[in-house]
């Protein structure tokens, strides 16, 4: 177990594993997203209150969940790079940021489009919406900070620090609907006991969640390979990998 964990600090090992995993992640993501989209749009019944507008949940909830997951991954990877000085930690953090930012934007846009028919407005300075917008700004900050330093190592450290400080926003986003009065609905899937959805609505949602996660894994693998090549381009193994 620990041997495998230590191997993850090795750029050539990660480069090879990422290349091997990418097609599997993509294939499984295509299956899960394909099933989730068809079942969510065609077979799931309309909601008794929201009608067919509720189907937006099939892209909104997975995007919002992924925005938090990617940020947490970025902060954990950044801390690994910062504390143990493992270069792969910074590479994974750098690779995660644009993916997380794009899914945060997707969550905001789809939430806004869902809010218009349900709340009567595209935007409200609601705790959940505002904290999610702050998350997007944090992603943009991390992505802008890294190349702002001439020394890449300093850029990595600064970006890692910002991502660690910003991770406090993740529980705020998650619990904002409980801590404050919010227009946003409470937990639907992650309710203790049983989810507030019937199976015909829930399974497509879980499939979309899984599909988005697998897609994230696939894109992360490609970006990590790019990061490794950028950071290790003088290494002998990179020359052999590029030649092949």
């Amino acid at each position, binding site marked *: 177990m620990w041997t495998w964990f230590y191997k993850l600090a090795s750029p050539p090992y990660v480069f090879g594993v990422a290349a091997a995993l990418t097609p599997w992640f993509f294939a499984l993501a295509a299956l899960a997203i394909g099933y989730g989209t068809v079942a969510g749009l065609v077979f799931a019944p309309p909601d008794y209150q929201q009608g067919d*507008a509720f189907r937006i949940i099939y892209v909104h909830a997975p995007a919002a969940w992924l925005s938090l997951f990617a940020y947490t991954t970025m902060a954990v990877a950044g801390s690994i790079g910062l504390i143990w000085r493992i270069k792969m930690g910074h590479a994974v953090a750098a690779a995660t940021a644009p993916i997380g930012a*794009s899914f945060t934007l*997707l969550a905001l846009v789809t939430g806004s489009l869902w809010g218009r028919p349900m709340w009567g407005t595209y935007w409200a300075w609601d705790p959940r919406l505002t904290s999610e917008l702050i998350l997007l700004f944090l992603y943009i900050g991390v992505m802008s900070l890294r190349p702002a330093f001439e020394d890449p190592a300093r850029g990595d450290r600064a970006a890692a620090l910002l991502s660690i400080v910003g991770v406090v926003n993740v529980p705020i986003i998650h619990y904002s609907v409980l801590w404050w009065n919010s227009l946003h609905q409470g937990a639907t899937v992650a309710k203790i006991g049983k989810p507030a959805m019937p199976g015909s609505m829930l399974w497509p949602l879980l499939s979309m969640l899984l599909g988005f996660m697998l897609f994230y894994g696939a894109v992360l693998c490609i970006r990590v390979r790019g990061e490794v*090549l*950028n950071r290790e381009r*003088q290494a002998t193994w990179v020359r052999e990998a*590029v030649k092949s």
Partner: protein
Amino acid sequence: MRAFWSMGGYARYVWPCFGFAGAVLVWNLWSARGYLAAARIRAVRAMAMDENV
């Protein structure tokens, strides 16, 4: 079929959401592949420069 596309009167909210989601997925794939390709080109150039020196 018309009922499906009209989404109970919410078509102008539902379809843009799915369209934008598709665009985000495609952009992620396209940009990641572009990033990897650019990194590969930089590595090849660095290798060529070293060989010339």
